[in-house]
Structure formats: C-alpha cells, structure tokens
C-alpha cells in the first residue's frame, strides 16, 4: 500500500516493506532503513533513519498530522491509497452552503456583514480579537450571507460557527 503525504502543496509518496525484520521505506529513488519506537503515551516516537536518530512527535488530529522534530512543527496531510481514492471520488464538489467557523477562540470585535449581503472572495466577514490582536475572518470564495451565528462583543470558542454562506 502507498502512503501519500502533502506539506503545503508539495506531495511525497512512500511505500514500506520488511527486509528481515528491518523496516524499509521507499520514496522516489530513495530508500531508508528505519527503526521506529513508540515513547510513552502514543504520540512521541524515536525514529532511526539509516542510523540517524530523530526524536519526533507525530500527533494525528482528524485528517491532519502535526509532526514536531528538531524544534520545528510541520503540518502533514497523510492518506493511504484507500483514503485517497475515497477523497478523489468526493472531490468534484459544487456550490452549496458553507459555514465559516472560528479558527481560534476570541472575542468578536466587529461584525462587518449582515444577512443577505453578497460577499466576494477574501472579503472580511468579521474581526476576531485574541491576545490584543485583531484578526480578520475572511470569506474563502464568493457567496451570500444566509445566517450569522454570533454578535459583536461575544466570546466564541475555537471551531464555533460564525457565518453561513450560500456559495454561488
């Protein structure tokens, strides 16, 4: 089975096999001899790659995997062949309702749209204040505001629905 990773827009795929107990990975024309050991509670690993030691945390939350290594934090999308096929089938998506959610907890400092407004791609829908900073929440595509779930001055939790858009 193949494993597909995506970081930003850069894709890499991997296949794995066992060679006499040794785990071996292939990607492109490269081959790595691996030793992976789980530490503690299930997200930390110690990984030897051709004898080089790497202390990594691989934290899978929903579809997204966060990898911490050498002080860096990298978001990786990982899919196996089966998942990729499934997502390709679901891929060809057309218009419809979309809910804009809060990407962080914060306080709604300003509400810039009303129900019925037509908004453009990138237009600011509201300002979310967190840690003394004003963060504009923007539409990711044109559409019409069909519902507003919050109000100016309200505190919202991470992931809370903010605005429903009917996409064109």
């Amino acid at each position: 089975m193949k494993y597909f990773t995506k970081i930003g827009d850069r894709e890499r795929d991997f296949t794995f096999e066992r060679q006499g107990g040794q785990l071996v990975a292939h990607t492109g024309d490269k081959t790595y001899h691996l030793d992976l050991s789980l530490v503690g509670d299930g997200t930390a690993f110690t990984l030897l790659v051709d004898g080089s030691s790497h202390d990594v945390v691989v934290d899978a939350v929903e579809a997204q995997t966060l990898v911490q290594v050498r002080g860096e934090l990298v978001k990786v999308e990982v899919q196996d062949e089966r998942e990729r096929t499934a997502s390709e089938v679901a891929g060809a998506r057309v218009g419809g309702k979309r809910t804009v959610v809060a990407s962080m907890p914060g306080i709604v400092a300003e509400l810039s749209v009303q129900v019925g407004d037509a908004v453009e791609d990138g237009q600011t829908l509201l300002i979310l204040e967190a840690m003394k900073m004003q963060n504009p929440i923007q539409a990711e595509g044109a559409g019409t505001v069909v519902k507003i779930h919050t109000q100016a001055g309200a505190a919202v939790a991470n992931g809370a629905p903010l605005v429903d858009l009917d996409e064109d």
Partner: protein
Amino acid sequence: MTPPFKRLLIANRGEIALRIMRTARELGIETVAVYSDVDRNALHVRRADRAVHIGGALPAESYLRGEHILAVAKDQGCDALHPGYGFLAENADFADACAGTSVTFLGPSPQAIRLMGDKVEARKAADSAGVPLVPGMKEDVQDIATLKQKAAEIGYPVMLKAAAGGGGKGIRIVESEDQLEDADRLARAEALAGFGDDRVYLEKLVSRPRHVEIQIMADQHGSVVHYGERECSVQRRHQKLLEETPCTVLTDELRAEMGEAACRLALEVGYVGAGTVEFLYSEGKFYFLEMNTRLQVEHPITEMCYGVDLVAEQLRIAAGGAVEQPRPSQGHSIEVRINAEDPETFLPSLGTITRLSTPGGPGVRLDAVLYRGLEVTPYYDSMLGKLIVHADDRPRAIARMRRALTEIRLLGVLTSIPACLRVLDDASFQAGDYDTGILDCIDRSVPIEIEELAALAAATARYRGTERIAAHDGAAQPVRPASRWVLIDRMEKLEQRPR
C-alpha cells in the same frame, strides 16, 4: 540576613509574576498572588504562598483594577507590591495611590513614571540631561505649515509618533512632503483611539537602526549605576522576539558613553529603582528613544552576564539599600520569547498544551508558565515564557540556544520557536550584522530537509500503525491514528514484559 520586606503582593500574572515570586521565595519574603477567573490554575497562583481572586478574565476586570488590588495588598498585610511589566507597572496614578499607604510600590516615583510616560516630556528631559535625540521636534505642532517646514529641515523620510504611545504602537513613516498632511491626520486619529491623547511629534527616520537599551539601577541616595546594554533589534511588528548582550557592534567607549547618558537621565528626573533607557543605534551614533520605568521582559540576559538578580536589587533598593557597583560582564547571553503564535505569520495561536518537555543542561534558564494542560486563552499577551542561555562567547551562546530550543517538545499551540531557529541560522545574525529589519529579510518557511523528515515520519507512523494492527488483528483495518497508537502502545507493552 533579614529579608527587605515581609510580604509581597505581585500585581501581575504570567512568567514575570513567577519570576518575581522565585526571587522573593529565595529571600524569605512571603508572596501573595492575584488572579482572574481564567487564571485560577495558573502557575503564578500555584507557586505563591497565598492567592486572592480579583475578578473577570478581561484585564480591566482584574489585573488593571488598581484600587482593588491595593485594597487586597493591605488586607493581606503586604508591605510591598511588585507591578511586574505591563498592567499597572507604568500607571502613575496607581503608584500615587500606593505612595500614601503602608504598601511600598516597587518602582520609581509617580512623577518619574508620569514624565517618562509622556514621550514629548521625556525627550525634553533627555535633551536637558545631554542625551542625544533623534533629530526632530520635541513638541506637538498642530500647524501643518510649520510641520512641513520642520520635516524639510530634518530631511525625509521622517516619522510621526504618538506623544502618549509606546511599545512601537502609533508610529507612521512619511517618505515625502505630499504624504505629510494625510499621515498627520491619521496619526492623530490613531493616537486618540489608542491612547486617548492625539498629540504627535516628528522625528527623523534613522536608517537601518538597531534597538539598543541600557539597564540602570538607581537608589534613594542619589546614586545610579548601569549594567551595560541589551541588543533588541530582532522584532516582529515592533515587538521583540530575541535579545542578546553584549551588542556585537558597541565598542567599550560607546558602551560607557551610552551608559553614562542613561545614568545622567536617571539623575535628571530623580529616578529610583530599575529602569531601561532605550536608544536607536545607527552607524556609530545613538539617539534617545524612550525610558521604560519598570523591569523589562528581557532583563534576564543582563542577569546572566552580570551575575546579578535584578528583582532582588529592586527589593533591596526599595527598602533603602544602596546600589552596588556591577561586577564586570562575563560571556554572552541570548533570550528568545516563546509566544503562542504562528511562526510564519506571527498571528496568535490558541489551544491547550497537550505535550510538554523542557530543555536542560548547562547554561540554560527557562522562565515560563508552561504546564501540560495549560489553556492558552485570548485574554492576555501571547508570551508563554522565555528561554535564556549563557555561554563563554557569542558563537557558543548561539549553538547553545539552538541546542536548547530543539530539546523543547510543545504541542497544542503553534509557537515562535521555529522563527527563533531561523534567526539563529541566519548568516547576518551569526555575523552580528543586523538591524531592526532583520526579520523581514529572513525566509521563515520550514527548511526542505525538515519537510522531508516530517513527511517520512508521518508516513512511517501511519504505516507502522496499520502494520501493527494487521499483525494483531490478522488483517489491515483502517483505524483512526490517534486512538490507534494508544492501542498499539498497550500491545507493545504486553509484548515487552520482562521474561
């Protein structure tokens, strides 16, 4: 050794509250913490001797409630109060309110706070103390014609700055005369909105400046000493990210000159306690920027090189002690700020810390309020802690900071750590040849070799999960990774039982 005070209220939160507490505890001074609704579990509460709830999560409902906090201090039998930085630290009215009570305010006089809080007045004081100023006007000028004439005299580009501003806020750069009128109007509006005071003043824009500041300490007997400089040019959005001492470009002569200038200013305004005089440095010249009448975030790098505890000195001096001549500075120190923020965009990142391990070994100091389970809320500053290193020389200090940063495990929020690593790896930084523009010049994206490693690690962890499940279940089943790993862990634990 009798402690200088009996019981100290710390009118702050976060790492600075904890830092003050540590020194107080070591000196045998009892500590009283105050906390807002969302800080009940904060480390500054858990490490205090006593703790008092003071209100809601918003600063205005808790940490900014000067009168209430002072009442708590009296009620708790405190004989001193440390304001830390931010919140009430540079609030002259609060210092005034303390002045008439049995609670000693750990800071300068209300007059000194007030004077230095007004940037126009502060420039005047610096000027009369013979401290060089950035060419510009020391006063607010409403008349646009005069403004234009002055700007022409100084020479473009110039800056308009809010008289009541600070911390890099309320600054507008004006490249040419045709932009001046609009910029003046906008700057005044911003200043009014931000600081409730629409006065602005004009200053020459210093090219490729460094931000270099001098730490001073003044006693009640008219003596002032300085502890050299801190180089704070690594800034994002006018907020410091990394500081170091000594500054790579200061000569001993210039250091002495700047130190003496800072001390003269302190004497001029009758300053008492710890203070920092900020300068712009460019091409062998330095210019007064502002004076911060409190302990700075970055004070630990001074402590590391001078072998001094600045909080202990604050307490000693507030109790009437005399300043001591600093020992000579030794080695090199660097501090980085660990903020909950996206290292590429610098936008805040909120969440709950789910995994944490902290660095150790020689020459490493961590001043942080991090703990597993900490919820990073939107109510306060994004700084979770500071990592400070000290070593014999600058290359070793850089290597040590890199080593210590990569020892940290911290999941649950994004942090500034990768941005700090980029700075440490930057050739200009390593050469010591940089200015306040450095962060704009550095590519902050993840290096390609890290990406490759991360992709390999993520794929391997996923494969390994599938493989283990297959081995135990007899067939590969697609299972959610997060829960799956815990299961695998248990399976492996069973297998690894001692024979």
